[in-house]
């Protein structure tokens, strides 16, 4: 099999998806690429050549002399100021980076947006979006972006959006492996053209705080062990990713690190209408409910669960470390604890 060529470019982003990619283990990143038959033509952090050598490479792709199988963009497309793209002229060319992206995307068999910036605009498009940052084929939730809703790659696929801020290294390498094997089709992409192998999950799946969630035993401040949905702004019950099934950096996840999921795989995640670290509520009820859950049921179940919350979870939820481990208490100890409770 001839290797598939890959060109990786960066624009209005932080480079964090590339750095995260370097965390790939067993095998490491470069082995993963070579073993899946990918020939890395150029990557800004890894390649030897630069300057004229790089410019002649992209020129020869634009002129059709060099075949390009996969084009990856990391970072938002910078359209500003006033649509001129001068917020990022590709150095050495005096040309807006978005011009180069348009030309290269037309030649690529597949185009991949790595990270929420390249997919939807992401963090760089937050606030007043001073940079006029957009995604390759979406501008936040709106189809369009740089290439337009109708755009299709030479393999008749839309831009594949590996959303995430940052992306998990496996999300990227597995997508690339599927592309290299010609094994990725439209059915494997969700409504935002994200690979379903990770967005068919909710961050809630496998969350180590599930028992607290079940009983609505909630965390109240950073470091508390309880569920972070009710007060701490956690969006894990709505967020589409497998972060608690596929660990980060060995064993981690945002929830395991003690902080809320900010739903970074979703278009528009960057502009929370409230603070990221606080749950917005209406009449005491969180505004954003778990995916598909009718409000009345949520309220009924939550109040039932709250009434049934074991002492163990109620206390543990607002502590940094376990006060009551899940062991069966002896009768005499239970009495003693009840007595202590009265004194307080």
């Amino acid at each position, binding site marked *: 099999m001839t290797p598939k060529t890959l060109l990786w470019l960066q624009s209005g982003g932080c480079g964090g998806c590339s750095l995260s990619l370097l965390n790939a283990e067993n095998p490491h990143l470069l082995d993963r690429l070579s073993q899946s038959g990918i020939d890395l033509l150029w990557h800004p952090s890894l390649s030897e050549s630069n300057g004229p050598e790089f410019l002649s490479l992209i020129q020869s792709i634009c002129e059709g002399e060099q075949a390009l199988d996969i084009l990856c963009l990391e970072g938002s497309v910078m359209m500003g100021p006033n649509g001129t793209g001068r917020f990022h002229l590709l150095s050495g060319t005096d040309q807006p980076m978005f011009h180069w992206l348009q030309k290269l995307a037309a030649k690529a068999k597949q185009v991949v947006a790595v990270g929420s910036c390249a997919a939807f605009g992401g963090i760089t498009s937050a606030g007043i979006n001073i940079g006029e940052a957009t995604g390759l084929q979406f501008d936040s939730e709106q189809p369009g972006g740089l290439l337009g809703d109708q755009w299709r790659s030479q393999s008749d696929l839309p831009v594949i959006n590996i959303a995430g801020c940052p992306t998990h290294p496996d999300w990227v390498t597995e997508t690339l492996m599927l592309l290299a094997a010609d094994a990725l089709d439209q059915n494997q992409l969700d409504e935002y053209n994200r690979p379903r192998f990770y967005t068919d999950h909710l961050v809630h799946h496998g969350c180590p705080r599930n028992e607290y969630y079940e009983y609505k035993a909630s965390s109240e401040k950073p470091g508390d062990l309880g569920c972070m949905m009710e007060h701490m702004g956690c969006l894990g019950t709505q967020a589409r990713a497998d972060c608690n099934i596929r660990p*980060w950096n060995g064993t*981690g996840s945002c929830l395991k690190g003690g902080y809320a999921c900010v739903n970074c795989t979703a278009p528009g995640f960057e502009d929370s209408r409230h603070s990221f670290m606080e749950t917005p509520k209406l009449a005491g009820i969180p505004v954003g409910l778990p995916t598909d859950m009718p409000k009345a049921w949520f309220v009924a179940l939550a109040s039932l669960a709250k009434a049934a919350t074991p002492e163990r979870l109620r206390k543990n939820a607002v502590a*940094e470390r376990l006060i009551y481990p899940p062991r069966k208490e002896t009768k005499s100890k239970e009495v003693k604890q009840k007595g202590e409770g009265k004194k307080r």
Partner: protein
Amino acid sequence: MTLPTGKTVLGPLNRVEGDLEIRVEVAQSDDGKDRVQQAWVNSPLFRGFEVILQGKAPLDALVYTPRICGICSVAQSVAAASALANYMEVVPTDNGRLATSLTLACENLADHLSHFYLFFMPDFARAGYQSQPWFDAIQKRFRAQVGEVVNQVLPARAGFMQMTGILAGKWPHSLSLQPGGTSKALGSSEQVRLLMMIRSFRQFLEQVLFADTLENVAALENREQLNAWAASHAQSDFGRFLSLVEPLQLDQLGVTRNTFLSYGAYDIPSNSSQPHLFKQGVAQWQKQSLKNGGLKSKKLDTTLIEEDIAYSWLVGERAHPYQGNTQPDADVPGYSWCKAPRLDGNVAEVGALARQVVNGHPLLLDLVKTDGASVMSRVVARLLEFALVVPAMEQWCQQLQVNEAFCADQSRQPSSGKGQGLVEAARGSLGHWLNVEDGRIANYQIIAPTTWNFSPRDQQGVCGPLESALQNIELNNAGDAAELHECLPIQHVIRSYDPCMVCTVH
């Protein structure tokens, strides 16, 4: 105001964490050789984080600022958490300080590792050095993507970064670093796992990078001892780098004598006499003073920091970051999106070398006294930090009190106030300045390490550190872009600063 048009353009430059363009003017010098006369450093990407942050809830800075940079993400978080703590008047817990220092040290050392092996050394394996007697051995080991080191370094780096999975949930872009400490209370089993990871990394460093103990490397005191060490450790990667110093005169390359600045690195618990592992301060050159080879230590006064925008595509005034603003305008005369930070009017170099000079490490003081800051001393300082920081990490990990709190109460959020957060990222001093009004961020200014090092000229026309470090580099053929790119000394000088271009403008 002369603007750099019609000069030879260097770029795009890779392995610099972002996009970089440099214009140079080459001409024949008095010695008859073609040399770089002047350089203009352009940071070509503007994203506008300081504008994005306006109007946001103060604590949301913890979500936005790490995303300024994927390689200094924890440093950005720590600077934001510290600016917030300053504004909220929160004192972080001792455990929080230790866990923060461990997380930051993990990022900083992983960055030093990526820089040395993936960004810096591959330039010595480029075809331009083919005729050199040392080339075969060096290119076998360090060639980009295919050198032997890749199979050792990528697993060592990823394994070491598993510390962040325990300490901070993930890397980059964690939210665990809070004004009151950290949101992850560690238990004793996590403590022993962290210790194991630090020791495994030590093992990698002692076998591959140094072929010696960290303690022996940390104890090197001067150039003479370093040369002797290099001769007897030629089969270590540090030894391999040192073997190139003489043939390529790396101690005479990229030489500058700018003020050194360090905000102080690794905040450690308050009961210790020194609040940082590496102290805060400024080291300035004094032509008259013989002591310290002309270097004089001064206390840092952050009120003397200003950002100049005379040559930036920005409108406004030169100002202290509390008063600064960021208003881009591509049509004003200028040549970079980067501002020009100055300390008491002076250009300053930041990074591992500045940190170690300010902290008074004898080896770096000796190197700098003799030759000034150079490609060699910048790289030596970075590698020396492995030997200094890893043993400290082992101690911090053992100092964690796993039954005590990690995060202090941070419920007090005044509706207005100011805060300053200073931290040392791998590549140098990073500062955040926050103003809160009516419970929202009214102004947020950031000065990143590469903003200092790759600053454009200021209103006096004074060059930034890289701009002056590039002057006088010899070229074979003036004015030709391909020739300029093949001039490898230029590439060594640029990367000796370990630039982070995404942080520079932000």
